[in-house]
């Protein structure tokens, strides 16, 4: 199964890219993807907990199951305004 991962703000700076395609085992959940990324990127590994995540442009929980072609983003703390 392949998903597209999008990076923004400080996370984009940390990985030095805006998006990538990741291959994950079928049945993977959002938290499994975060664990995989944290295994690759030391900046992510320093987070004590998974940051807010979005699947297909909507907030999603750590237990949300991923599907082929999903658009996933982990969101740095939001400042806005």
């Amino acid at each position, binding site marked *: 199964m392949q998903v597209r991962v999008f990076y*923004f703000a400080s996370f984009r*700076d940390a990985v030095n890219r805006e998006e990538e395609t990741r291959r994950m085992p079928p049945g993977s959940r959002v938290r499994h993807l975060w664990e995989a990324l944290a295994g690759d990127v030391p900046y992510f590994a320093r987070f004590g907990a998974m940051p807010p995540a*979005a699947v297909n*442009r909507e907030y999603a929980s750590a237990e949300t199951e991923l599907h082929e072609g999903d658009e996933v983003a982990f969101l740095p703390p939001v400042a*806005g305004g």
Partner: protein
Amino acid sequence: METHLTRSPIDVAALLKEARRTDGALCVFVGVVRNESGGRGTVAIDYEAYAAMAESELARIANGLSRDWPEVRVRIQHRIGHLEVGEASVAVLATAPHRDDAFAACRAAIDRIKTTVPIWKKEIRPDGTGEWVDATL
């Protein structure tokens, strides 16, 4: 669908023209770029959005406010890109027959925007370096 994100300067006067003839109160909040943050100088802020999601989150907030204050209509504009000190980054217009509802909905709107909408800001210091806000680690 109405768009909430813009790369162009926010036109507050144009926003005011959206009031209905039944509205007796127009409450506007405008957030602008300030020249300091926590005692450190700021010369500009770069705003970055997860645009597709930010649009839908802003629409969701506007719809939620309409449910909470049925007589109020809320319009939100958020600018992204490079903004200098004094430029407006966000504008909220809440219009209602009476002022109590307009004030309350306007306040709730900006508070919700700051919590859930995926927009980030990088403060640019006088020496040209940039720092993501709240990206604390």
